[in-house]
């Protein structure tokens, strides 16, 4: 292992890490928003929007991100819809992630006892208040593990962004590999970089999940 090579190229990897993390988190935030919208459209049975959300979720979950990106980046411009590589990255990741987040929220909502919604209704809450104060907080607590799993999944998925010619970690490594030929060092740093990004997120997930478990959620029917 050539440590001087590794030290010399840390800045390259830092740059790549920022691209990976930046686009990853941007995509995650947009995915959460889109997922929430889809989930609410289905929960409140909003006509048209509900069916649109269901179709979208199926399309996004049953196609690879790589193919989605090719369509966005190389296909759509040919019919006059042109996005920058950066926009494609965020749109592509959001298209994929929104569907996964919607499913995470949905499973959270399904885990809330239907009687909770009735109890909220019985103290005169409007449907919106009921969702906001009673149902959604409980659904979110159940959905947190799935949401974090999606975050890690989405950040891993950013590794194909090199097809958009973005200098993410993968592309930095690939460029160094083809120019310098130090394959082992290049790959070692690539693994280390992904670990340094994903491990803290995983630790955060564990902490949040543990805190939620202790936050006073009791078994409904335990006496």
């Amino acid at each position, binding site marked *: 292992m050539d440590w001087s090579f590794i030290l010399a190229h840390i800045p390259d990897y830092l740059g790549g890490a920022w691209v990976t993390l930046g686009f990853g988190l941007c995509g995650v935030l947009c995915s959460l928003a889109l997922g929430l919208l889809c989930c609410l459209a289905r929960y409140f049975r909003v006509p048209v929007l509900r069916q649109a959300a269901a179709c979208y979720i199926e399309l996004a979950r049953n196609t690879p991100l790589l193919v989605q990106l090719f369509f966005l980046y190389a296909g759509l411009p040919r019919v006059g819809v042109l996005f920058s590589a950066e926009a494609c990255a965020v749109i592509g990741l959001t298209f994929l992630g929104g569907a996964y987040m919607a499913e995470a929220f949905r499973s959270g909502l399904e885990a809330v006892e239907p*009687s909770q919604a*009735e109890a909220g209704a019985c*103290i*005169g809450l409007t449907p919106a208040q009921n969702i906001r*104060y009673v149902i959604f907080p409980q659904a979110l607590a159940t959905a947190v593990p799935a949401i974090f799993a999606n975050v890690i999944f989405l950040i891993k998925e950013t590794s194909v962004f090199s097809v958009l010619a973005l200098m993410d970690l993968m592309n930095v490594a690939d460029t160094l590999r083809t120019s310098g030929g130090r394959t082992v060092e290049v790959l070692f740093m690539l693994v280390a970089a992904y670990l340094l990004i994903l491990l803290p997120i995983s630790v955060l997930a564990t902490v949040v999940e543990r805190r939620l478990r202790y936050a*006073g959620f*009791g078994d409904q029917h335990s*006496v």
Partner: protein
Amino acid sequence: MTDAILRVQDIRKSFDGNGVLQGVSLDIREGEVVVIVGPSGCGKSTLLRCINGLEAIDSGEIWLRDEKISGQTKNLHLVRQKIGMVFQSYDLFPHMKVMDNLLLGPTKALNRPRQEAEAEALEMLDRVGLKEKAYVFPRTLSGGQKQRVALVRAMLMKPEILLLDEITAALDPEMVSEVLNVVIDLANSGMTMAIVTHEMRFAEAVADRVVFIEDGLIVEEAPPEVFFHAPSTERAQRFLQSFTYTSRRRP
């Protein structure tokens, strides 16, 4: 009857062609405690659920004072602010402390100032003997305590009528009386109530009038002393007999 606070007129409700309520009419006067009894699946819980709109009725009308409340969908939450309901499964919100459970309705649905509502909530918790539990999470409470909190939560909305749906059915036997005593207190303070229960001795103690439902129809209506000791219909007699046991024959 002019002083009826709640009027249920010939309501029908079926699930998948199964007629659960087949024309039920019932008036409840202000301050009256009506206990509804009947075998499992007779429609008594469905009746309560229809009254506060958790189930839509197929036909008939329900009036709360001068307001027709059946058939409404848009302002259902305004109707429900006037009708309290407590279920068998307590349904406290597990992510909120007891006090937040109690204040959610008054502060969000009724827009009352939090401090004022909180003082009132503490007072009512004190009345049911749970003042020291105001700031704990529901999971730390016993079933009987949860159910008393649920009663307070419903009462803080100052409902015109309170519906209790088998509120002791999920409780261990020794906790039943602590909950039912609260209900008897409420009755004494003049609360109008419709109560579905399987506790016949409690029914006899608290009721002004007993309504016996079977197969989606009201079979008998009578004051408790008549219903429990000299029911006029044969079906009510058979129902009451099911609560007694024949002792084992010994040779």
